[in-house]
């Protein structure tokens, strides 16, 4: 579709861009400055409204570089929800208070826009544009937004360097792909693959691309940045980074590999079964994430490592890469959005009210704030994957796919063992909260916005474990590239 006629199908994104501009302009006007977050939230809400009315088109937009398909549609909702609550909660995060954060909301909105682009990119150029230019660059700034905080600065710097390294690998891989197939668009590459004479080169190209995508979803061995960045960034940003870009990373990973290779029945390249490779990486990723999380005393860092493990679980389904597997990843991401962000909101609450960072600081938290403590138990249950919680249903779908494929039974076993390991550290938090008496038994009250956000994210974390048919229905409609 031509550039001009594409505009009609690109309204949600355009509204986001308008919002970004409005937030930046308002930031410059002293009297209106404090309203910038309202504009940002309103922009997201209206984007949601436009998105709701957006039925999508089968034809790719902007000369075949951006898809407006049901698949992207689904992911856009995840980005909007994550973005909305991150902006909302950031305003009530004490650590962010007082710091001069004029561009904060604008940067966050740019990331959301970039994520939209990532989920719908069907051309290597747009992939790069979305992933590196519009998502990563503002993310670096956001990670280091606390200019006077050494850790935040360090996080930002490490993020930049490792990001540059990975994107370098990825672009290098892209260039190989282009060289081999003569095309930048995914469909062109797919067609061009048939004529590729050098399988080894193709293999190298795939590895390099995988490195780039793997960096976004923090897949071992491209996960190194994750703990440091997650720990150093302001907590709302950590929560956001652990969910939204990861979802986008999975979106692009699935779109790329599914539409380029699976539809081509290309399961072996240069004698290498690359699905087995992903299965191995999945096992390593989840085991690594869980084992290291086990050692952590800092709650935020523990959740950071655990997010690596969750990426590992989702990679399990990617090693099957059937439509059912894609569905399973999407189910898991939905559940993960609620349970993981909910847990990070709880971390914000603990930091705000008690300046609690380590498990030691969390001791007796349940006694001090029984209601939120109970919600946190549900979230931990869900993250572990115990029934009846959303996390259980998510894992159920992942494991079901792996077992149904009859290919990687061992992977399912590794996954189950890892779930057991994760039970240990998630319930260390529960134990700290409830089985110890607090040093100071005075009850603490949460900021109402934070408390409400925790509640709003815990309800689906529990409810979707009991009644998840609507999510399945939505996802069933969303599997279409």
């Amino acid at each position, binding site marked *: 579709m031509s550039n001009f006629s594409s505009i009609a199908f690109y309204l949600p994104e355009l509204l986001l861009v308008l919002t970004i501009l409005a937030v930046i302009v308002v930031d410059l006007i002293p009297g209106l400055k404090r309203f910038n977050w309202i504009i940002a939230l309103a922009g997201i809400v209206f984007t949601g409204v436009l998105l709701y009315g957006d039925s999508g088109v089968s034809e790719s937009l902007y000369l075949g570089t951006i898809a407006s398909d049901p698949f992207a549609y689904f992911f856009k909702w995840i980005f909007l929800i994550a973005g909305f609550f991150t902006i909302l909660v950031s305003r009530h995060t004490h650590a962010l208070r007082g710091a001069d954060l004029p561009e904060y909301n604008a940067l966050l909105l740019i990331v959301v826009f970039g994520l939209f682009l990532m989920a719908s990119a069907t051309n290597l150029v747009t992939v790069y544009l979305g992933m590196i230019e519009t998502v990563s660059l503002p993310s670096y700034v956001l990670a280091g937004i606390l200019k006077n905080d050494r850790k935040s600065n360090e996080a930002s710097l490490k993020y930049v360097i490792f990001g540059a390294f990975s994107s370098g690998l990825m672009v290098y891989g892209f260039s190989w792909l282009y060289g081999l197939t003569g095309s930048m668009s995914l469909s062109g590459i797919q067609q061009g693959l048939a004529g590729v004479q050098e399988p080894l080169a193709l293999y190298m190209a795939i590895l390099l691309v995988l490195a780039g995508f793997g960096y976004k979803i923090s897949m071992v061995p491209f996960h190194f940045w994750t703990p440091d960045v997650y720990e150093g960034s302001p907590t709302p940003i950590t929560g956001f980074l652990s969910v939204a870009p990861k979802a986008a990373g999975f979106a692009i990973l699935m779109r790329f590999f599914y539409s380029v290779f699976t539809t081509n029945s290309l399961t072996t390249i240069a004698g290498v079964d690359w699905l087995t490779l992903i299965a191995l990486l999945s096992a390593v990723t989840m085991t690594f994430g869980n084992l290291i999380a086990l050692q952590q005393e800092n709650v935020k860092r523990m959740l950071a490592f655990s997010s690596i493990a969750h990426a590992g679980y989702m990679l399990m389904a990617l090693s099957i890469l059937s439509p059912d597997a894609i569905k399973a990843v999407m189910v898991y991401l939905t559940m993960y959005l609620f349970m993981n962000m909910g847990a990070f909101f709880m971390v914000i609450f603990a930091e705000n009210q008690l300046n609690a960072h380590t498990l030691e600081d969390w001791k007796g938290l349940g006694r001090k704030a029984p209601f939120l403590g109970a919600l946190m138990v549900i979230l931990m249950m869900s993250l572990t994957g115990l029934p009846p919680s959303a996390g259980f249903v998510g894992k159920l779908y992942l494991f079901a796919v792996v077992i149904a494929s009859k290919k990687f039974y061992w992977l399912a076993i590794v996954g189950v063992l890892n779930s057991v390991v994760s039970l240990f550290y998630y319930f260390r938090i529960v134990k700290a909260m409830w089985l110890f008496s607090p040093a100071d038994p005075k009850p603490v009250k949460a900021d109402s916005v934070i408390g409400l956000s925790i509640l709003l994210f815990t309800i689906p974390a529990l409810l979707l474990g009991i*009644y998840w048919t609507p999510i399945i229905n939505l996802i069933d409609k969303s599997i279409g590239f």
Partner: protein
Amino acid sequence: MTPTLMFALAILFLPLLSFAFQIFFGSKIGRAAHWFSLAALGVTLSLALSFFANIFITPGYALLDVSAVWFSSGSFTVELGIYIDNIAAVMLVVVSTISFLVHIYSTEYMRGDPRYTRYFGYLGLFTFSMNGIVLANSLLMMYVFWELVGISSYLLIGFWFEKQSAASAGMKAFLTNRVGDIGMFIGILLLFMQLGTFNIQAIAEQVEFGAFDGTGLLLTIAGIMVFMGAIGKSAQFPLHIWLPDAMEGPTPVSALIHAATMVAAGVYMTVRIFAFLTPAALEFVAVIGGITALMAAIIAITQVDIKRVLAYSTVSQLGYMVMALGVGAFQAGFFHLTTHAMFKACLFLASGSVIHSMHHALHKIDDHSTDPQDMRNMGGLRKKMPITYISMVVASLSISGIPFFTGFLSKDAILAGTLAYYHLHHGWTIFLPISGFGAAIITAFYMFRLIFMTFHGEPARKDIHEHLHETPGAMTTPLIILSVLSLAFVFTIPSTVNPFNSQGWFTSAIHTGENFAGLDMEVVGEALHHAHEPAMMISLTVAALGILAALLFYLFKVVDVEKLTRRVNKLGLYNLSFHKFYIDEIYDAVLYRPFFWYTKVVAKFDWELYDQKFIDWWGWLTLKISDWSGYSDYTWLDQKVVDGFGKATRYFGKELRLSQSGVIQNYILGGVIGILSIFILFQAF
């Protein structure tokens, strides 16, 4: 969403709302919180009545039948849904009426309890779960609410958990019920395995169209298995042992849960699955009901605790209902469920009124050792508590099967059913009418024994008697309402006021039952019709005999009861009844003790052999191996290899640190090594 569905959902969820409200806000509000529960239950009742009214406005079946997908996975779909026909509508009214009245009653009975609001919360939870069973259109959903009912029953029996006996009674009820529930679940899964659906209507339909070949053995087994749930919940032999102990709960709870509604859930479920119970399964059902009816009635004769008499009476009456369904008297069984709910709730609430009054009197004279529930401490309460007395007499007449009262209509129909069954099958089935009529005479006897011991004669304890007084309006009003509902005309009006004719709105609203599994309901109906008159004659006679005996024994004292007891006891008969046929003792000897012995043996084996020998041996071996490996690890791997790598890394690190500072380079190095090793390793293999 249609208004009908909205109403049905409101019936279901309003009591749950009441539960949530009481649990979260009750203790903050205090006593006034009961208004919320009363309002919620009032609305529930009126909505239930609106469904009930629909029976008359738009006759016909299935007032509501909706399903929604709960979840589906591949070809496996599980649905939840609501199904309301006339039977469900009547049941809804029964449950919400009694629940509402018990709520009112409890405001007075539970006054001053430290967990007053929590009590109302639990009542709400119970009503929610019970309504769920009534509304469920599938066995799976019914099972879910079945367990919820079990939980709320557990919570309410053990409500005064500081008392050891209450806590263990709750546990006993829960565990005993679980035994039945396991059978029920197996049955449900058997049906699902064969037919691929949990929907009750769909199962019946498939059976009608030849699944299981109409009368297959598997269907019989499945039916009996599902019925096991009813054996547990409706306290049928041999799982009846929990119900008398459940009387440890507050008396209004006994009235609501352990007399009128929850224990009837088993009967209700059997009514629901009646259409696909095979004749063989029904025979089993009838025998279980017959044994329960007679045995429990015999036990009730000798009990001295007023609530225990009523508890065994409940077990016996539930036996009647189950037996009715077993012999194919479908309508009679459900009819008795309805009438029994009213008069038994009335009896329990009246006994609660007596206990409440006794309790206060004992409190006044500062006597804390006397049992306020022991009938031997009562006597002559008639003048002090006239309303309680009259309502109790009305309910007793009803349960004894005296004309003009509801019990006569329903019980008579059941007895006709047993007689008809004998006429059709002959042989051993004579046991059923014998059990039915035998239990009827005993029922009349023990009920009037209770009345005379409690309300007539001279007060056994003058000091207590002085302080007794009628209970407040909140407690007597439900009694009055329930005793009015125990009058026969309530169920026959407006078609007839003839006390011997049961044809009325009830018989026209509730059909005579369908069976697709091989029982010919036409033949049953015909036999029932013929058995009707002789059954009525005999039942009138036995009821009169029972009351007469009670009169002679306990009011006029013509016969010396003590002497008679001693004489009867020469054969051990009195003790047999008083000790409830020693069933608890038998279970103790053949089930619990062997089981505990077994656990001890296993524990011993586990500790002494497995743990001390086997595991420790492994420990020893592991130690040895680790010693050896530790040695080789340190001297070889650590000193040579690792340190070598370490030195190398340090060297490279040092070299690299010259050009860059910070740890990030190690990260990048990791990434590079990672990608290279993947590349090389996968190429190599």
